[in-house]
């Protein structure tokens, strides 16, 4: 049944649009489409013909007088269930109670919405909304339906498949066009007369991706674009929508308006909201919001965050967070560029020979200071070696925060010296601070490269201690470590490894049809990938690539689907995903790539990774 608009999660499949008239949601007031799919994307221009989907129709049955808005243009709108709430009681009654209307989202959806008289009649509906399986999955019967998808293709599954197919296409063709670069530009500030507000708001609205963090009391805490003064009205709107559901003892998890997807994550007294027109799945957006939340914890620790709000619910959190905005912004930047690490929830390591890594591990162990907790050697965001106590593994989310701080945000590097930074690693322990020593190594002779390159090439020693007085001890360890590594040639090996960069697909499999791949080793929680160059060097191309991966990943990880192999063909690219208990593999090739060639290359790469496993991944790390 149509767990339509709101079910606890997004259900990919049910989207009936129930234009419900809820007086309270003025904002949502678009013609609503129920998407049958969690997300429908329609690609412009051409979409693969879809088989009729019987299921969808049935889903729609419940809804009363809904009209499906179709997007006449091919849009890849991801329309998921439009409004998803996590209601404790996910009963249908609940749904109906909160009349939700599904909105059709398509990137270009708004341009033309054709409304169908009834949702069911909609072949248009079908074509419009291609469902992609959304990871979050569906509840109840819906899920059951999906179970089969992987195995058999009839009916629902069909839809799913089509959805998947569309995504890449759309992503490549519509969404990621040139505008991406402007995503990183500042909106600007209100001038003294305040007469540029319109202009700023206009610029603000053009951004495809926003994050807004606000307190439960409605105070803006951090916004990705524009300052809180500029957009306070919008923050108020968001607050109103969220609290409308809270008043009904419900939690809003997400909704769509036109082609825009809103995802809400509530943590304690914080609401984190992602607003995206970049065709990301709810799960993916939620992961990003989680990372932002982790960053806030990392700055303040959970107890002090809780304390602040328990003492004064109207606390203005932006003050205690002062100075860490750049960390949030650089996280947001990397999510906007597309981050394989976040997508896969895994880390990347520097590829280096096993014996060289061993030598570095030994140097770390040998020089280990007594108050050291974790010691990391990191090259441009790629882990080279790590020393840790046996009992404590590292949380990828924590490392993501550290790497963001050290390599992406400028605050540390621009300091020009060694740094000593109190930091909470929420995955390790959200209630207290550790102290992090950071020192960058000069292993290049020619440092005057472009910022991007230097970022990839900079090497940092990161030493973490629970003792806040341990700076000089860590400094001593750093000096000893560098000396060791100089003596045994490790520094040179690291430099060589950095210079070698990531291999291209053709280095691995000569003549392969693959342009790019991601490989995640599940056991190691690490991933490796081919170089972005030459195909995906530009920010725009890279963003497109990541959109394709997002879609592929979302399809494969749709809840209750057990997809093992997924092959999508679209106008602009062929994408292929392959999941086993050991690894997840995703790759992109030319459109119309022969399926056998694709599969062959994929398995060759998987073999290569397995052969090179000890070079590509850190297995265990140096343990004391």
């Amino acid at each position, binding site marked *: 049944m149509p767990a339509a608009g709101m079910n606890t999660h997004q259900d990919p499949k049910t989207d009936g649009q129930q234009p419900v008239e809820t007086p309270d949601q003025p904002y949502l007031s678009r013609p609503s489409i129920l998407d049958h799919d969690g997300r429908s994307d329609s690609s412009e221009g051409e979409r693969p013909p879809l088989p009729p989907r019987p299921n969808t129709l049935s889903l729609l049955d419940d809804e009363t007088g809904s009209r499906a808005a179709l997007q006449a243009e091919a849009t890849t709108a991801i329309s998921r269930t439009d409004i998803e709430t996590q209601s404790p009681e996910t009963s249908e009654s609940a749904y109906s109670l909160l009349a939700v209307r599904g909105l059709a989202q398509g990137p270009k959806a708004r341009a033309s919405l054709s409304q169908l008289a009834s949702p069911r009649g909609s072949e248009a509906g079908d074509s419009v909304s291609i469902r992609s399986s959304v990871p979050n999955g569906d509840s109840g019967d819906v899920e059951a339906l999906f179970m089969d998808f992987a195995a058999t293709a009839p009916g629902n599954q069909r839809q799913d498949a089509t959805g998947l197919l569309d995504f890449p296409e759309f992503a490549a063709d519509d969404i990621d066009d040139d505008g991406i670069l402007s995503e990183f530009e500042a909106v600007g500030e209100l001038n003294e007369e305040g007469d540029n507000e319109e202009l700023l708001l206009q610029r603000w609205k053009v951004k495809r991706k926003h994050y807004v963090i606000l307190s439960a009391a409605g105070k803006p805490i951090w916004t990705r674009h524009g300052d809180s003064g500029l957009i306070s009205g919008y923050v108020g709107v968001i607050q109103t929508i969220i609290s409308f559901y809270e008043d009904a003892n419900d939690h809003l998890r997400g909704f769509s308006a036109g082609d825009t997807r809103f995802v809400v994550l509530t943590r304690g007294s914080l609401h984190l909201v992602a607003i995206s027109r970049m065709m990301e799945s709810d799960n993916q957006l939620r992961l990003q919001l989680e990372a932002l939340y982790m960053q806030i914890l990392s*700055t*303040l620790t959970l107890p002090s965050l809780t304390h602040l709000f328990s003492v004064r619910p109207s606390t203005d959190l932006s*003050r*205690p967070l*002062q*100075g*860490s905005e*750049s*960390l949030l912004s650089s996280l947001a930047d990397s999510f906007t560029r597309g981050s394989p690490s976040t997508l896969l929830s895994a880390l990347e390591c520097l590829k280096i020979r096993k014996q060289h890594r061993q030598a570095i591990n030994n140097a770390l162990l040998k020089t280990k200071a007594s108050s050291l907790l974790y010691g990391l050697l990191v090259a441009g965001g790629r882990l080279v070696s790590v020393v840790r106590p046996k009992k404590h593994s590292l949380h990828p989310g924590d490392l993501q925060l550290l790497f963001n*701080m050290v390599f992406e*945000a*400028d*605050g*540390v590097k*621009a*300091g*020009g*010296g*060694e*740094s*000593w*930074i*109190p*930091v909470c690693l929420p995955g390790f322990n959200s209630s207290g601070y550790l102290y*992090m020593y950071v020192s960058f190594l000069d292993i290049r002779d020619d440092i005057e490269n472009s910022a991007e390159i230097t970022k990839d090439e900079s090497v940092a020693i990161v030493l973490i201690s629970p003792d*806040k*007085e*341990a*700076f*000089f*001890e860590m*400094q*001593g360890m750093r000096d000893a470590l560098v000396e060791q590594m100089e003596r045994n040639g490790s520094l040179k090996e690291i430099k060589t490894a950095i210079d070698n960069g990531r291999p291209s697909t053709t280095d691995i499999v000569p003549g392969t049809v693959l342009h790019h791949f991601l490989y995640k080793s599940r056991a190691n929680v690490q991933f490796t990938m081919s170089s972005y160059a030459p195909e995906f060097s530009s920010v725009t191309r890279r963003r497109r690539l990541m959109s394709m991966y997002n879609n592929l990943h979302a399809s494969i990880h749709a809840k209750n689907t057990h997809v093992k192999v997924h092959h999508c063909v679209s106008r602009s690219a062929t994408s292929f995903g392959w999941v086993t208990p050991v690894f997840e593999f995703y790759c992109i090739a030319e459109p119309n790539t022969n399926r056998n060639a694709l599969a062959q290359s994929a398995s060759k790469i998987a073999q290569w990774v397995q052969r090179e496993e000890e070079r590509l991944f850190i297995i265990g790390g140096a343990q004391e």
Partner: protein
Amino acid sequence: MSESASANAPKPSSSVKLVLLGEAAVGKSSLVLRFVNNDFQENKEPTIGAAFLTQKCSLPTRTIKFEIWDTAGQERFASLAPMYYRNAQAALVVYDVTKPSSLTKAKHWVAELQRQASPGIVIALVGNKLDLTNDGGDVSGATGTAQSESESAQDGDEGAGEEDEVQDAVSGDARKVSTREATGYAEEEGLLFFETSAKTGTNVVDVFTAIANAIPESSLKTGRGTGAGTGQTALGGRSAEDSRVNLGDRNAATAKEGCAC
């Protein structure tokens, strides 16, 4: 510049631990980067935690190696500050000449240092962002004249020296803190005083040179011992407690002494 001198033959060399304190965004890191790398970045991201840098400063009779703690100005880091100033022989308390509230914050830091830091600590009050005022361009505007050349800076530049320049200060564009006000305060408290621009470099080296000169010989000896490496091990450590006990007035006194020499 001071660096070049370090190549010179064996002069006695000693380490001086110096800490920078002040409100966020007054330009502490920029001052340090100007001093250490002779570099300036617009819109530098805020420092996170604290950065540790070293730079040598050559005086006619000796070489001073500054070990600089550049602390983040945000309030949440304030509780860590004692760790950095505990054994410091010198402190740069920085405010922004275009922002009166930052001077207030600076005064709080000075008071805290006088209460809690080592008794002999030399404190310099520094008004940064002089380039935003009308007297931004000309070096003479503030204190610096006396020791514009690092070598020459023998005589302390006490607040007293500065008074004459006060007048023209007030006319500055964005200036919100008059030189007179700051000088008066610095004099009362026995602080060195400078107005600087990290952006143009005005007076930056001078501040450090003046501090180097103001460090009492006696404290340098201990400085040498500690500086060499071993002594560093304790970021904070022993003196913390003792110095906290009841040094209120003695501090001020010694600071003055220091400058006077």
